[in-house]
């Protein structure tokens, strides 16, 4: 079974600074997808960034970027120029490619951006 591990239950960062959230996963497959989701307090969970394992280039979305290390099975999220609105729970998620493979989520990292 696939597992996703987020070893940082809570983190904080000063506004405008950069923070990196860690995620590791376990799989024996070669093709899969990785995701970071953001869940603000009492608000909807939204997709932040998506990475396809067969693409070596790291995905970026504005201030959000990932460091995808396939051999190490590591998928960290870097948030640059942190803003107060980045305060949220961040979940790393994994899915094998192929038919009807479920998405497995990590336990989340609670990020607090400090003004």
């Amino acid at each position, binding site marked *: 079974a696939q597992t996703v591990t987020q070893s940082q239950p809570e983190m904080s960062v000063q506004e405008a600074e950069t923070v990196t959230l860690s995620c590791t996963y376990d799989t024996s497959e070669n093709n899969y997808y990785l995701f970071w989701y953001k869940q603000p307090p009492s608000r*909807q969970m*939204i997709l932040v960034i*998506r990475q396809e394992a067969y693409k070596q280039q790291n995905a970026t979305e504005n201030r959000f970027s990932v460091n995808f290390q396939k051999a190490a099975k590591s998928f960290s999220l870097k948030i640059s120029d942190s803003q107060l609105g980045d305060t949220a729970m961040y979940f790393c998620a994994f899915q094998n490619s192929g*038919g*009807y493979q*479920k*998405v*497995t989520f990590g*336990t989340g990292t609670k990020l607090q951006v400090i003004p």
Partner: protein
Amino acid sequence: EAGVTQSPTHLIKTRGQQATLRCSPISGHTSVYWYQQALGLGLQFLLWYDEGEERNRGNFPPRFSGRQFPNYSSELNVNALELEDSALYLCASSLGTVYINYGYTFGSGTRLTVV
């Protein structure tokens, strides 16, 4: 365009009762996913429906069941409620096909409290 809608927002039930949760996916999305988010446990995969069929199921007892209707909306039923069923139940839909996951769009969730 309407997002993923879930109802009710909150639900309070007594132990042993049944709960019914509803979800309408984004127009054009045929897959609906159900997750349980209990405190400190991250998101646990419950069920995946696509084209009216159950495609995958998480490690939950049979008293967790559901269905998908011809309009792709979905219903999650929890029978013989137990106190530990208290959680936020999230529904998501996806534009992706079975073989490509572009990421989920989540609803706001139903907060189920069992007393």
